[in-house]
């Protein structure tokens, strides 16, 4: 698939996104593939291992390597998940929900400021999907908003995650989006998901985007400045024509809302 994307002449995406952790320090075939991809497309990076919500210390060695990588590949936006994936000095390689609490807000704001200072660039933080809150003492939208505003970071709005969380936790997706600091949104993610039970959706990135998520996206756009929109697909990847159709559908909606795009 990577080579197919590199070879595309028409109908190519405007940019690509990848996780820096999956490509750092790679040589050989994958190193050459990365070079070809970054020469052809503008690059945005979406991290997996920063673990901004972790109780552990920040990993400065990792941050040094990350900074170098972002610089080398001229990465235009670096985003991460508002979650934690490392705890008690052990990586878990997945996104765990942070307790929505005041002390967690202060802790994360402090860490985000340190990271942004060190990387010498703003970080965009993504609202993540979660399947149960853990010891929550405040609303999710309030938790996200306080962190974004107090750390002066940017927001990556994952519309599918809002839909998934609204479904799983029984809240109104539009109301939730309205409560976020939308002037800080610099990037949007769109993806598919899988409903595994009558009351539970898992955010898989392995399916096509469903219409209600397209509708929520369309409803959201007029409230935002034009920003890059990513179609995420991590596995169960279909033929490139199907992906192109999804990209075109996203383009159609964005050009309707953002006339100059």
């Amino acid at each position, binding site marked *: 698939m990577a080579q197919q994307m590199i070879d595309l002449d028409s109908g190519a995406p405007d940019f690509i996104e990848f996780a820096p*952790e*999956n490509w*750092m*320090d*790679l*040589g*050989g*075939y*994958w*190193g*050459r593939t990365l070079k070809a991809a970054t020469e052809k497309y503008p690059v945005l990076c979406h991290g*997996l*291992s920063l673990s901004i*919500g*972790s*109780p552990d210390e920040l*990993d400065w060695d*990792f941050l040094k390597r990350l900074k170098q990588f972002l610089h080398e590949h001229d990465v235009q936006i670096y985003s991460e998940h508002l979650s*934690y994936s*490392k*705890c*008690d*000095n*052990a*990586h*878990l*390689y*997945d996104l*765990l*929900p*942070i*307790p929505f*609490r005041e*002390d*967690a807000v*202060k*802790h994360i704001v*402090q860490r985000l400021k340190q990271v942004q200072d060190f990387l010498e660039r703003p970080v965009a933080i993504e609202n993540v999907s979660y*399947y*149960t*809150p*853990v*010891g929550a003492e405040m609303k999710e939208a309030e938790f996200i908003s306080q962190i974004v505003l107090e750390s002066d970071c940017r927001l990556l709005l994952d519309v599918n995650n809002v839909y998934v969380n609204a479904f*799983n*936790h029984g809240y109104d997706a539009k109301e939730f989006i309205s409560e976020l600091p939308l002037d800080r949104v610099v990037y949007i993610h769109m993806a598919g998901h899988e409903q595994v039970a009558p009351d*539970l959706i*898992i955010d898989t990135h392995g399916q096509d985007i469903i219409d209600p998520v397209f509708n929520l996206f369309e409803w959201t756009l007029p409230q935002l400045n034009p920003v890059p929109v990513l179609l995420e697909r991590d596995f169960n990847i279909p033929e490139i024509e199907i992906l192109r159709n999804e990209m075109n559908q996203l383009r159609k909606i964005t050009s309707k809302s953002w006339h100059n795009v």
Partner: protein
Amino acid sequence: MYKLKDSTHTLQSRMAGYCRDGKPVDLPVDSQERLSQYRRLVFNVVKGILEQSYPVATRRLPSEMWNQLLHDFFAEHDCRDPQVWRMPKELIDFVMNNGDRYAETPYLVDLLRMEWLEIEVHSMPDKPIPNHLPVEDILNQAIVINPHYRLEQFEYPVHQIHQLDPAQHKSDFFLLVFREEETGNVQFIQLQPFMAIFLDTLMLNPTICAVEVAESICQTSGHSVDQLLFRQIEALLNHLYVKKFILGRTAV
């Protein structure tokens, strides 16, 4: 510096611990069933990466033993690497440090090491290739080798695992593992012990030719220097040249 409250830290630790070992935990969540999704999702990521990295070990070990190994690894071992694709390397340390548990598969460490070598060599950062010219006299010219390689010693013939039971053939085995420059594919070549020492010395001394290296090793090891040995060395070097592990001779 602001410090996270102990109560919040404890919640996060318990959640992470549950994801690692799956043991019931007291957490203020909306639904225990929903909580169990986290254990399932987290463990599936780890299992998937490990099985992708170790396809031979996955098939070779009885599934109950393999699954127990993965469970124990993730529950007991603190994964240190922020890059998930490198995490499987830590399974080797875990098995080495818990050898008693895996005594019935004494070659397991070697098997994991061999499978990991393929990934490591395939992905190792690019190194500069020195200028080189076609070889004219492979025994007497300083040669240039492909820098993307590992030369490793094993106790069991895990590279022949599809033909024999490695546990029954404990000995010394040497594998040269290298990456083809053009395709990026990884090649494995078994070497006799003397040839492994010879090649290792040759690679560490890029300005010295094969004949000088062989004579020096023979002097220190008491090996006799004869024409048969030189023919064997020449055959090996020619084979490695054809395979493009030897790239050429030094261009001065």
